[in-house]
């Protein structure tokens, strides 16, 4: 018979921020907290920059053409987090590249290039994995 346990918060006993879950192969355990994305966003970087959907993002800052700061609601523990990105090119398809530029506990800055110069990007996806404060 299936069992259902209803709770609002999951907390580790030994360490509050560390709960182990069994891996798909049933032979090891992995940290639930470490496996979760701590922030993600899909935003429109053209015109007045705007968030389409997000997790743990308080605001966006338009630093300059193609350069956008993503400000966290809950900060990270350190600036050693990973942030894979995906940018959608406009129409040039020439020397297109999206990467993260700077990062701190409170924000990560994304930059989009096309044709050798920075350019505002219509659709940018960013995912943050690391240690939440």
């Amino acid at each position: 018979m299936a069992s259902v346990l209803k709770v609002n918060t999951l907390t580790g006993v030994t360490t509050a921020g560390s709960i182990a879950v069994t891996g798909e192969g049933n032979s090891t355990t992995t940290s639930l907290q470490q496996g979760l994305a701590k922030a993600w966003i899909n935003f429109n970087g053209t015109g007045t920059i705007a968030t389409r959907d997000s997790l743990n993002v308080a605001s966006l800052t338009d630093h300059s053409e193609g350069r956008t700061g993503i400000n966290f609601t809950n900060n990270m523990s350190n600036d050693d987090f990973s942030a894979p990105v995906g940018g959608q090119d406009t129409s040039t398809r020439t020397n297109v590249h999206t990467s993260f530029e700077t990062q701190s506990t409170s924000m990560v800055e994304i930059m989009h290039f096309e044709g050798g110069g920075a350019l505002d990007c219509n659709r940018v996806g960013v995912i943050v994995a690391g240690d939440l404060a």
Partner: protein
Amino acid sequence: MTSQLNVDAIVDKAGSGGTNVKIGNTSTYVSDGGNVTQNTVQGLAKAWSNNNMQGTPAFNDSFNFSSITDTATGRQKNTFSNNMTNDDYAGGGIAPVASTGTAYSSSMMTEQQTTSFFSFMSVYVGGSVQTIHDFPNVGLIIQGDLA
């Protein structure tokens, strides 16, 4: 009334593993640093893949993708098994340095995203020249709202 369960490990009722455990979509977890809580389900990757774009396209490994469509050199479409709620999700990825040519950087770009598929283009840049390329292992992660 707020409820809290203190545990060190979550497994299914049979105790054989965690594959049958279900987590409600409003559940929260305590952060790594122990200072804040966030939604658990929002933090879970909804799909990921490692695509071999060379030859007959194939997943080296994947989660919640059912098929690949090879649309052109360096361009592929991954179709979800379980669809997303909307097309506002985040897709991030990375392409390796190309094994041919003088490559200074590689990247994966979003081509199109819908509730049922995510398509991308992968390139490498050597000097001032960008080349669309089939890589043997492009990594992709999808975060957002599952239907």
